[in-house]
């Protein structure tokens, strides 16, 4: 359908539209007009992504003189594929109605591992080794060498791409990773470098958060994006965690050992160069003396990850004198490693601020703060001078230099925590020195400063006023949308006790109680016998899930479950989990029905949808609190309390419930869909916990459903499923329109009544 929002003609690829989608577009358009940032919470299953994409692309069409670029960030690669799938649909529609002028170029961008088509490179097993294998074939000096020595192996795809030079362009269209690979293979061009090159021309770029938030990656990939871009963070309820992760580094024993080995290797290389090609080291020294910008001579390549510090915190000065000479720099690093080794030898947990850490480093190892700060730059220059390509082997020394640079750059918002072992496993010594960032606003600040509109959106952003504080920005629009239901298609319940009336909870003192484990099991046994197709269960942690499944297996509960449905489980092995999910979907598709056991905060909870028949029921076993005794979490809570006056308990509950809401929210895809959500823990019945759930769940949580036992829940579930199986009027009844047609929208535009839908 085609309709107008104020002065923008919106092309929307469906015949009907939900009223909340319409409103979402209206708000979004206002934010774009105001060239400001916005924060929008809209329930899952109301078509956020398509609303967002169609408004922004239509907005672009309506302003042909100042075309905006859309940078769409997703958390995971599979969400990226999903978004591109929707964009494809939209693009087809727009081209059908507008012809060639609606053509856009949209690409998904990922790492070499996901884009490479060179089978030899792909044989490497992880990302770092794929990167290294690629560099071994594409680095400038390797290619220079190959002109003399034909035995040096190059990558044909890259050579062809280079040969095509500026003619290597993607025709307009929407390209998923698979499409890019297919195109690259077809033309014989390297899809990775092609995609990287196309970033500056593309109208829509879809990639993961890190490419914009992590300075190490953003520095090489997102450097050239223009200010007139709209940046969207989808499913952004965890964005604060991504931000602090981007600036955190830790050092272990193995890191130090590896770094020492790296230094030996570097030392050897320096000696070799001194004997054969001393001029090169000399030249590097001179360049550093002159204080040439290091990054200047590297543009366009990504031999190295960029500086771990944020762009505006990087000093634009010459490298300090004491590390200009390669061997001096190696000495400094040796001293640093030694000092870190001594610090790791502690028997107690130590917590320190970066300032005191730097001053004790200065007094004990004689390394100044400014020297630390340049560690990254100096190492990068040295590695390039020494022409080292197997970068994956030099990761440990990179890690140490990243650590040094960060600790030298930031005085506040960070802390250093040294733990001799993991609190939960005191019998295994595993010392670790962690530099952890507490301030989420640091990493995202450059994004807010740089781009005219940043949209943060998700199904769970409650409480919505917390996010501007955590990320310290001022949104021009901040709204939370309700869901207008044609029928009560979601049915949240709070289960507080089992059939035997004993309370259930995953509270620490109760979780291993056999009664609780049995009651949890019985709940599932009963549910799988009445719920059709897919059932998903989320547990609070892997270890808890492991334990409870083992017990169910011994007591025969698992066998009872298996009589009704197949059982699939998320494990810590991603390949296995992916296959399990694929099988789960097939079991639901063919009508066999299945149960999926998963973990809140796990990979599956992050971004896999259990919509339609893939999930008719979600059971959330327990409240997914973080491990509250964690020293890092403590430090972060303290920081939040001191800087933002956010109370500890509030933050913990907020965090636990956004995870829970995220888990259960994945069952709904559209208003035609339906699903039940069971919160199985007595603590959910407390108002202070429950009230942190997003409004669209709360509004369906009836008072009668707040304190249920298993048999009552079964009864409610049965009634609910029976009701949902009936045909219904999709357009909504009794004057409450939940599905708008073209006519409705036109009428709305005439009368100017914006909220006739509610």
């Amino acid at each position: 359908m085609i309709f107008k929002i104020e002065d923008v003609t919106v092309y929307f690829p469906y015949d009907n539209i939900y009223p909340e989608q319409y409103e979402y577009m209206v708000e979004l358009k206002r934010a774009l007009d105001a060239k400001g940032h916005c924060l929008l919470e809209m329930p899952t299953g109301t078509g956020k992504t398509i609303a967002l994409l169609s408004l922004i692309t239509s907005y672009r069409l309506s302003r042909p003189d100042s075309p905006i670029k859309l940078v769409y960030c997703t958390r995971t690669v599979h969400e990226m594929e999903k978004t591109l799938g929707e964009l494809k649909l939209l693009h087809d529609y727009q081209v059908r109605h507008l012809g060639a002028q609606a053509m856009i170029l949209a690409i998904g961008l990922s790492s070499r591992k996901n884009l490479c088509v060179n089978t030899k490179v792909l044989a490497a097993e992880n990302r770092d080794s794929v990167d290294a294998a690629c560099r071994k074939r594409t680095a400038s000096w390797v290619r220079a060498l190959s002109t003399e020595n034909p035995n040096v192996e190059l990558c044909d795809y890259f050579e062809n791409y280079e040969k095509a030079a500026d003619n290597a362009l993607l025709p307009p269209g929407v390209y998923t990773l698979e499409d890019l690979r297919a195109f690259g293979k077809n033309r014989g061009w390297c899809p990775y470098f092609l995609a990287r090159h196309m970033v500056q021309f593309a109208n829509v770029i879809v990639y993961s958060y890190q490419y914009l938030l992590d300075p190490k990656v953003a520095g090489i990939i997102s450097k050239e994006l223009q200010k007139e871009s709209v940046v969207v963070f989808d499913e952004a309820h965890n964005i604060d965690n991504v931000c602090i992760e981007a600036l955190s580094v830790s050092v272990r024993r193995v890191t130090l050992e590896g770094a020492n080995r790296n230094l030996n290797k570097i030392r050897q290389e320096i000696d070799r160069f001194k004997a054969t090609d001393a001029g090169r080291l000399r030249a590097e020294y001179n360049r550093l003396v002159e204080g040439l910008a290091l990054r200047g001579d590297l543009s366009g390549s990504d031999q190295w990850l960029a500086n771990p510090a944020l762009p505006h915190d990087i000093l634009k000065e010459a490298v300090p004198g004491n590390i200009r000479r390669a061997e001096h720099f190696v000495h400094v690093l040796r001293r640093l490693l030694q000092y870190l080794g001594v610090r790791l030898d502690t028997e107690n947990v130590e917590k320190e601020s970066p300032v005191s850490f730097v001053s004790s480093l200065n007094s004990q190892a004689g390394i100044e703060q400014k020297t630390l700060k340049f560690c990254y730059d100096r190492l990068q220059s040295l590695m390039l001078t020494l022409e080292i390509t197997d970068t994956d082997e030099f990761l440990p020394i990179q890690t140490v230099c990243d650590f040094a640079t960060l600790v030298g750059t930031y005085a506040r918002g960070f802390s250093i925590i040294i733990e001799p072992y993991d609190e939960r496993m005191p019998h295994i010594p595993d010392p670790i020195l962690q530099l952890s960032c507490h301030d989420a606003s640091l990493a995202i600040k450059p994004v807010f400063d740089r781009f005219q509109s940043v949209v943060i959106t998700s199904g769970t952003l409650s409480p919505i006023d917390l996010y501007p504080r955590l990320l310290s920005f001022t949104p021009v629009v901040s709204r939370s949308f309700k869901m207008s239901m044609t029928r009560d298609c979601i049915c949240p319940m709070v289960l507080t006790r089992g059939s035997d009336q004993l309370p259930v909870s995953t509270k620490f003192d109760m979780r291993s109680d056999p009664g609780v484990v049995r009651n949890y099991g019985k709940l599932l046994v009963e549910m799988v016998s009445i719920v059709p197709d897919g059932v998903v269960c989320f547990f609070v942690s892997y270890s808890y899930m492991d334990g409870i499944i083992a017990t169910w297996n011994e007591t025969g509960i698992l066998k009872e479950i298996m009589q009704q449905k197949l059982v699939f489980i998320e494990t810590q092995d991603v390949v296995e989990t992916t296959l399990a999910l694929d099988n789960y979907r097939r079991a639901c598709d063919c009508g066999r029905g299945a149960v999926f056991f998963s973990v809140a905060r796990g990979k599956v909870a992050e971004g896999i949808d259990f919509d339609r028949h893939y999930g008719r029921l979600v059971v959330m076993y327990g409240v997914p609190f973080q491990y509250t005794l964690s020293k890092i979490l403590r430090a972060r809570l303290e920081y939040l309390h001191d800087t933002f006056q956010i109370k500890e308990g509030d933050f913990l509950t907020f965090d636990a419930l956004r995870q829970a809401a995220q888990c259960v929210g994945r069952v709904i895809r559209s208003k035609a869909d339906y699903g039940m959500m069971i919160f199985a823990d007595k603590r959910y019945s407390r108002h202070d916990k429950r009230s942190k759930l997003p409004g669209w769940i709360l509004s369906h949580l009836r008072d009668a459903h707040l304190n249920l036992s298993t048999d009552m829940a079964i009864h409610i579930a049965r009634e609910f499923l029976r009701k949902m199986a009936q045909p219904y009027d999709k357009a909504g009844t009794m004057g409450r329109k939940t599905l708008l047609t073209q006519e409705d929208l036109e009428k709305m535009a005439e009368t100017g009544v914006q909220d006739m839908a509610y």
Partner: protein
Amino acid sequence: MLLFVPNDPKSDLKLKVQTHNIKSQKYTKQGSNKPPWLNLTNKQGRSHIFEFENYPDMHACRDFITKALAKCDEESNKSVVSTPSEQLSMAEFELRFKLLRENSELQKLHKQFVESKVLTEDEFWSTRKKLLGKYSIRKSKQQMGLKSMMVSGIKPSSDGRTNRVTFTLTSEIIFQIFAEKPAVRQAFIDYVPKKMTEKDFWTKYFRAEYLYSTKNTAEAAEDEELAVFLKPDEILAREARQKMRRVDPTLDMDADQGDDYTHLMDHGIQRDGTNDAVEPQNDQHRRSLLQDLNRHAAVVLEGRCIVDVESEETRIVAEALTRAKQVSKANQERLERMSRAAEMEDLQAPQNFPLAPLSIKDPRDYFESQQGNVLSEPRGARASKRNVYEAYGLLKESILEIRMTGLSDPLVKPEVSFEVFSSLTRTISTAKNIIGKNPRESFLDRLPKSTKDEVIHDVIFNHAATPSNPCSRNLTAYGLMCMAMKQSVQSDLRHQVSLLVRSMQQALDAAFQHYESDLQRRTAKIA
């Protein structure tokens, strides 16, 4: 009588074959060098050979002849039944045996009647001709799935005196072990019978399993052959890698791992309590319950992938499985599924997805489980429900309305049909359960006869007029369900159930009759 016409418009050669004259049919196997031939031999010893253009055509024809033969047999058997002939073909005998083995209900009956000499074998089967016929036709079409029980659930039986335990292995279990553990399968092919006997092999296997369950892997590691069973399965890992390539990209979490730069070693936050603490397992024989569960479910989902091997010979099964495990590519289907998933279903006109027919091996199981649900419902729920009369009243009302105003969309209000169906299902199952106390009373009998006929007549009439509307489809489906129930219940309960169902059927029949006679009367008048 079969009539064969060549697929060549020019020639008018025709061949008539009496069906009951056909003695046997032979055909060339697909894959052999010969063209697709079908050879029909008749009882006089003459034979006709037909040549087909391709194999599918031939198979279609063959199936058709088989059906025709089966029908012909049935007719001829009718006359034969009175004269007890003991000449049973081997195939038929096997079929009966199989049927008994798979249908415990039937087996019970068989025991009760035949073995106690109440009925002869033939008498018993002659009433179940349909079952036999249906089975023999359906057999080729549908494979039975695997049991969903885990193999690890096999508990050994012990004699209580010594420490000896005994495992009973069936071919089903062996199949499952081979499918779930390719390494064991490979080991079997390698070791048996060259290195050890089959019995030794399985003893070793269960010994290894036992050692594993007691976490006593050190001992197992010393024995080379035991270690084979416990080390990580390489064949599985290879298969997994292969399967990853055709996995739905919207599920592919492995791609994330390769994209996410916080997975760079030692970057990101390690120990903040969100990530789980994992016990590092340096044990090389690590294999978790969770993996076993996933693997098991995957195998059950796949079902029997070797169709034509029904051998008891373990080795053949193992080899066939190894061959069948070649992962096929299904790229096209995958992409299609993905694009469908990207759409929002209710924002556009409904799409018609292809329907797959439902075929349940034993429908009785299904209905019985439904009945269990109804009975276990708490009392409060039942009180809140309207009784049959009310539901019936609602239905009647809406039919009246249809009569007055004509058809509307939806034909019957969802609430009404919901009421009717829920109360019907409930009454059926409760009636079935209280049978014995008061067998005569059935819910439909409680309704006044005249109105019943009237209602059903109306429904049928409407149904005939608008065959595509959902209500009538439901009703016919319901009728079919009744019949299915009646057929599937071959026990002593059958009488009562048929009483129950018959009333419904009678009503239907009556309605049809009524309708037909009405029609006749009218045509007679015109004449």
